[in-house]
């Protein structure tokens, strides 16, 4: 964990731009990323650009490294002892694996929503307020109430829970829990939201709810979503990247990928021949 956060701001201003990324609309750029779990190589030479205010979908067969890549983007892999990341990943042109980068700050800017809803065993209110509180974004009291309300509203959950904010978040339904987790992520005003199969534990109605939500959030956030569901990728994303056996095979506009895949592995996957 890089603790060296003393001169963070200056460091960010002064750090040299990562090569090959003049395009300002690329929020995140990954260059030659290799990831190893102990000696096992999970990702090979990934090069991928994530554009700002767009939804990028990552698709591919199980075990191909989608989650691994996603977790690289906010350095959640740091919490796994045996995991090692090589290459460069830049957020706004700043290498996030640079020594001066602080994971706390990075993860505040790049939020994450997990496959299984994981509300904290606290009240709904405290679930949302937790992030803003630890980061000092809002004072306790009316200011925090406002943050909680607006986050829940943006996550489309306010109407359902506004009368039961003091009840535990774990008492909600699966779909509500997932939206709670999204609201929790929004509450710290991230720039990017990473979502790892956010709908896989949900029924179609809850899924539709979340998909609408993702579409709305796109205007304010950059979103990267992992999904196994082709239709979902087609519905919510503007860009799609296809992963296979640890490689990024193809990345293009979603429409292109689904109508006119360049690589035959991509074609095989989206037409359901394997995966």
């Amino acid at each position: 964990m890089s603790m060296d956060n003393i001169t963070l701001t200056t460091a960010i201003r002064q750090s040299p731009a990562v090569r090959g990324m003049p395009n300002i609309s690329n929020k995140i750029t990954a260059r030659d990323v290799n990831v190893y779990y102990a000696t096992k190589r999970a990702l090979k030479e990934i090069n991928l650009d994530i554009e700002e205010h767009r939804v990028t979908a990552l698709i591919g067969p199980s075990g191909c490294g989608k989650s691994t890549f996603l977790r690289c983007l906010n350095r959640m892999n740091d919490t796994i002892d045996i995991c090692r990341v090589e290459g460069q990943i830049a957020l706004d042109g700043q290498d996030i694996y640079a020594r001066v980068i602080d994971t706390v700050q990075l993860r505040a800017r790049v939020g994450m929503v997990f496959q299984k809803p994981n509300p904290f065993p606290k009240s709904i209110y405290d679930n949302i307020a937790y992030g803003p509180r630890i980061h000092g974004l809002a004072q306790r009291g009316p200011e925090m109430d406002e943050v909680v309300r607006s986050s829940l509203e943006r996550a489309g959950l306010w109407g359902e829970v506004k009368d039961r904010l003091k009840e535990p978040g774990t008492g909600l339904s699966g779909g509500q829990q997932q939206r709670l987790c999204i609201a929790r992520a929004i509450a710290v005003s991230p720039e990017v939201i990473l979502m790892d199969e956010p709908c896989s534990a949900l029924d179609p109605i809850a899924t539709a709810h979340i998909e609408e939500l993702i579409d709305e959030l796109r205007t304010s956030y950059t979103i990267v979503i992992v999904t196994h569901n082709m239709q979902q990728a087609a519905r919510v994303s503007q860009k799609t990247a296809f992963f296979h056996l640890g490689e990024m095979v193809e990345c293009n506009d979603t429409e292109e990928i689904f109508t006119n895949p360049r690589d035959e592995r991509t074609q095989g996957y989206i037409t359901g021949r394997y995966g």
Partner: protein
Amino acid sequence: MTDLAHDTVMRRSAYQSEAFEARLRQRYRAERRFQVAGIASIAFAAVMLVVLLTTIVMNGYTAFWQSRFDVEVLFDPEAITPSGSRDPAVLAVGDYAALVRQALQAELPDATGRDGRRALMEMVSTAAAYDLRNMVLAHPEIIGTRQKVSLLASDTADQFIKGHIPRNITEDKRKVSDRQMAWIDLLAAHGVLTTHFSLDVLTQSNSRQPEQAGMWGAVIGSIMTMLVTLGLSVPIGVAAAVYLEEFAPRNRWTDLIEVNINNLAAVPSIVFGLLGLSMFLNFFGMPRSSALVGGVVLALMTLPTIIIASRAALKAVPPSIREAALGIGASPLQVVIHHVLPLAAPGVLTGTILGLARALGETAPLLLIGMVAFVVDVPGSLSDPATVLPVQIFMWSDGSERGWIERTSAAIMLLLGFLIIMNAIAVYLRKRFERRW
């Protein structure tokens, strides 16, 4: 669109502001404080362990050194057998203390008069006279001769030589008088009073005098008690575990047994002592202070531990093995005896050793069933009065003489030695047979 740009700028400034960074530094300080608290906790535990072990060893190792007077004793017939008879009954009651006194007076001519003699004899153990008597009884022909003999020093002299009794305090507060101090220094300088390595503290049986007290009786008592405990708790414990894990139907009764076992494991040990007292001593009339009752009580106490450990070991054997064996026509009991138990054996053994280690160190319940009696003889059978190491430690620690501290510490060293060996075996077994299915 402008709104959106504004939003983004706002956000960026939020996380890259000086205020946020100041807060971040503060959060990391809290993080470090928390981590330091964790390290401090572990360090506290470790330091306490080190302090405890060092205290014991520093106090205890001197028990393996014993001071003796190497003197020439004249086996004066006048004192031993004034009548000249060689009848052992007469020889047995001779005035051997006089021989001891004379031998020392030969070295210290100024030790005369009542006070002088008393001060002199305070430096020799009462065992010295007994040793001379035993020599005479074994070899009556030495009467009348001079022999080089090594006489056990008293606890006071021994402790003084070992530096456990401070010199530079006023005489009335010191156990050794100025005169004795001078004598001891003189004898030590002449090489008469020397301190040698000695295993007497291990090999002798108990005594009321610290310099004579040894723990052999307690060691034997502990071994006997543990054998009873082992013989009862292991078969019963393993059988119970096999039944509960492999055969028992899941119903109210087995639930009750399970809850009962878990709770029994947490019942204070002294309550088992009360059970032993009122049930085994008072009701069944079993022999008081005996290794038998002690072993039974400890077996009941250890049983839950063994059952729980054995069940865990049985549970860890994958069902596929049972299915495979059942599939080739073995009966359920055969499956357990031939296939499951052998695979679970290391786990059962580990649990057993750990349970026994706990029983070996247990004191309180044994006090209640009278194993705290002062026993000189080494127990010869399970129903003889006996004591065990921890109880011996408890009793010795109560002694007022300085020598008890080193004896107690030495007994603790031995007990901890046993426990470390047992635990090491358990750890070895766990490592050696650890299996990932």
